[in-house]
């Protein structure tokens, strides 16, 4: 590489030309780099996800069930055995009360779980973000639930909630009565019980995010307010919460989206039962496709859910993008110490 105009001298014309050439080369190099890096990813998308999406479209317009294909194992048999039904399946989906109930259940579950995780997580973080004796030990214990496998939580939860299990024993000892509560197999409480497991599982998520957020808060505004005689309550609501807004939004949005897709605990414990008390969207799709083998109806359902979830996810991403800007500004103002 030849020397350029580091010392601020005026370039002779041929140097300008050379530099322009180099810049063009550089831009081209970056473009090549970009497509080299992206190509395996795009290839995978084209080879796996795109065909799947196309199949999904096909089956949601063509009525098909595994049974129609007979004994044939070949792919083409699926197509031959299916029959064009236009929008019928989608009309069925919109008339399906069971699906409507599943949507409401999922929304209830996700909202309850998100708020539960957030309230406990933020509360604990507020109690813990200033150093005190034992802080590190509590922190380690508090993050354990999210390091366990969801399905392990489900089965361990079942052992604890079992009619002759320790929870009923503890309740019996506290109340002096023989408590035989059925936490899982009663219609009225099943969804709440799963929600409680979800909250136990993911409170650590809100907790660590809020701890990190509180640790990054600038001290000056709070100290200034204190000197001016503001109460703790006012400092919390009028200084800390507004500054924490991006972190709060992040904790809520990410948790809500994950809770909408919750499957391992709901499925492995109750498969949608008792009755249809825990039949959330993922469980309903699963039942339709893998228990009733109604591939086509499952595909139409999935499409509607895909559109619905894309809407929710895009709204979430829109909000995240907005908050990311304020977050970046926050970290810009206070460079991280780690």
């Amino acid at each position, binding site marked *: *590489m030849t020397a350029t105009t580091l010392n601020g001298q005026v370039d002779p014309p041929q140097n300008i030309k050379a530099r322009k050439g180099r810049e063009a080369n550089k831009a081209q190099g970056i473009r090549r780099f970009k497509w080299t890096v992206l190509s395996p990813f795009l290839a995978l998308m084209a080879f796996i996800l795109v065909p799947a999406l196309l199949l999904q479209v096909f089956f949601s317009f063509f009525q098909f069930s595994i049974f129609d294909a007979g004994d044939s194992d070949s792919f083409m048999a699926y197509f031959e055995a299916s029959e064009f039904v236009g929008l019928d399946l989608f009309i069925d989906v919109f008339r399906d009360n069971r699906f409507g109930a599943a949507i409401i259940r999922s929304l209830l579950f996700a909202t309850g779980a998100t708020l539960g995780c957030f309230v406990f997580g933020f509360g604990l973080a507020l109690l813990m973000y200033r150093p005190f004796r034992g802080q590190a030990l509590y922190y380690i214990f508090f993050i354990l639930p999210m390091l*366990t496998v969801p399905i392990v939580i489900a089965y361990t939860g079942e*052992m604890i909630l079992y009619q002759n299990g320790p929870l009923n024993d503890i309740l019996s000892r506290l109340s002096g009565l023989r408590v035989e509560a059925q936490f899982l197999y009663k219609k009225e409480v099943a969804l709440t019980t799963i929600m409680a497991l979800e909250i136990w599982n993911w409170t650590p998520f809100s907790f660590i*995010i809020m701890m990190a957020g509180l640790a990054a808060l600038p001290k000056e505004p709070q100290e200034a307010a204190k000197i001016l005689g503001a109460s703790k309550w006012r400092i919390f609501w009028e200084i800390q919460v507004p500054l924490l807004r991006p972190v709060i939004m992040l904790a809520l949005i990410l948790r809500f989206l994950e809770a909408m897709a919750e499957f391992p605990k709901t499925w492995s414990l109750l498969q949608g039962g008792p009755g249809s008390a825990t039949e959330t969207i993922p469980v309903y*799709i699963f039942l339709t496709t893998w228990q009733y083998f109604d591939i086509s109806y499952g595909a139409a359902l999935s499409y509607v859910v895909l559109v619905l979830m894309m809407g929710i*996810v895009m709204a979430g991403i829109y909000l995240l993008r907005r908050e990311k800007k304020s977050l970046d500004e926050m970290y810009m103002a206070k460079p991280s110490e780690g």
Partner: protein
Amino acid sequence: MSMTMTQKRNVFSVFRYFVLTIWLLIVAFPIFWMVSTSFKPDREWFSWPPVYITENATLQNYLTVWTDFNEYSTNEETKELGQYTQSLQRPWEALGNSTLIAGIATLLAVLFGSVLAYGVSRHQILSEKRMFQLLMLRMVPPIVLIAPISLWYRQIGLLDSIPGLVILYFLTSLPYAVWMSKSFIDEVPREMEHAAEILGASRWRTIWEVVLPLVRSGLVATFLFILILTWSEYLLALLLSKTDVLTLPIELSKYQGSTEGRVYGRQAALSVGITIPLVFVGLLIRKHLARGFSFGMVRR
């Protein structure tokens, strides 16, 4: 009557320990119960009142889960022959598969993700909008596409195979890999790269020998973080593999449906085995968990 500052502080301190200790019990109890049940003999699994700490501690559950594969086999012939491959319980295979699938998918995701993250961080090869769109791979629930994927997988021979799961785990953990490693790469000063560039190093050499080594600890954290997620994955493993290739969470779920009814002690013993590596890994990277779960948007 007003309290002095010190008194107030003491009251707060007591209140804090009180609340934190209650939560500690809530968090610790299920874990304690899992471990304690794993040492109980079978007559104590369902007894009333429940046994909290058994006096007849036994390793039988662990031994059975990891060595007696035909305990719940319904196939008499298999049982007699003691055939491992046809028995219901195949824990070692599941352990091997879980390690292999989670390990390979995570490694690929981190390698690919960090190079992509470098490109985004230094040359904006993906716009901010595209970066956020990438998140959709994670945020749209996999259940909506899993049926056609399984049909397609069957056609191209990826159903019930290790590569089939690796591909999907790779794709779904990519958003975490790119975003998390980008947050580490963003923090590294660029002087070294410029120096390497001026000395004539190619872009790939700069990446491999300058940038990635600088963020090594961050990439290790990213790797371990994604390993936690892929290791515990349930839905894809349940639907895309089951008979030939099974992973640990699926192996565990078999005990739920076994013909002998519930076998809490065995479940607990296997659960402990699945959980220990994750807790170990998670505590190792506890400082980076917030960054990981928030796609690098929150740092600590």
